[in-house]
């Protein structure tokens, strides 16, 4: 049986973290930096929403503003953390041994596994916008790893591209999860077919408008659907950009 929910942009959890005061060791930046985070699922103090979706536990829509804004280096285990940079430049440092700079279209998969630290920072004056996703792994305490790739929006205009998952050119991760992206400048309609009835699909509108089955989703709205044989998606006539996360439930 098909089941779904729609989450409007304004219904998400919201945190505004500043680099001064009690969070000074957690949030980087000087003299004052502001980090905002809209959470689709429960995270930190946000407990009014859904606990997650399938293997997805965190879906954060984040903006780092001000010189040096970000998260100081801190420890993780197990979670597979992905970042998709939308605007600005993200500097990512991790204890796997990477110092990486990511610009719009770039994305990474950092699997913390048996233990790894990372730092996320915006070293530029312009705001950095990124989507952060955290997935549970399919095995505990895997060797930590880091891979990165680039989504070329121009070359892939009006095509659904697999960014993460089991596909040519996609980053792999140790979980039954696929992340795809469609950047369109005209109306694009298609049916998305989940791998099975026990897979759920989370559609998140980065920009523009998307018709998802019977729902119309505006910028930063989202919908989760499961138990569906296919999901009908249609982008609006203006420029639209959407992320699709398919996950085992």
């Amino acid at each position, binding site marked *: 049986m098909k089941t779904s929910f729609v989450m409007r942009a304004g219904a998400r959890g919201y945190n505004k973290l500043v680099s001064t005061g009690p969070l000074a060791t957690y949030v980087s930046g000087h003299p004052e930096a502001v980090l905002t985070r809209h959470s689709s699922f429960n995270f*930190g103090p946000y407990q009014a929403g859904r606990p997650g979706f399938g293997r997805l536990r965190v879906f954060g829509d984040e903006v780092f503003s001000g010189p040096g804004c970000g998260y100081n280096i801190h420890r993780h285990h*197990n*979670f597979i953390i992905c970042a998709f940079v939308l605007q600005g430049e993200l500097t990512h440092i991790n204890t796997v041994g990477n110092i990486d700079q990511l610009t719009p279209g770039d994305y990474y998969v950092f699997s913390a596994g048996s233990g790894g630290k990372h730092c996320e920072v915006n070293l530029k004056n312009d705001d950095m916008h990124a989507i952060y996703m955290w997935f549970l792994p399919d095995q*505990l305490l*895997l060797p930590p790893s880091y891979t990165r790739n680039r989504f070329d929006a121009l070359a892939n205009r009006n095509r659904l591209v697999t960014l993460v998952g089991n596909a040519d050119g996609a980053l792999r991760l140790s979980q039954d999860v696929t992340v795809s992206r469609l950047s369109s400048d005209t109306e694009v309609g298609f049916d998305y077919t989940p791998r099975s009835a026990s897979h759920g699909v989370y559609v998140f509108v980065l920009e523009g408008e998307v018709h998802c089955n019977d729902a119309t989703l505006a910028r930063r709205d989202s919908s989760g659907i499961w138990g569906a044989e296919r999901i009908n998606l249609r982008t609006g006539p203006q420029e639209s950009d959407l992320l699709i996360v398919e996950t085992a439930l």
Partner: protein
Amino acid sequence: MNEDLKRYICLGCGFLYDEALGLPEHGIEPGTRWADVPENWACPDCFTPKHRFEMVEIPYASGEPHLPRLGPILPPPEPSLHVI
């Protein structure tokens, strides 16, 4: 391993609490049930409170957990009396 023993993951950072292993360095003995971990206990890595952990049924990666296994205490070997 007792199959009834559960694993719990911190939703703030991914830190793992395995009932089978406990956290001896934090005074929590192996075999301590999650329910018996003090309610005011928090994640040692990120201070997320206990109620923000989630029970997971995820197997370990090959070779993990990489901790000394506590086997039965064996008597010391008999001294050998070989005359060289």
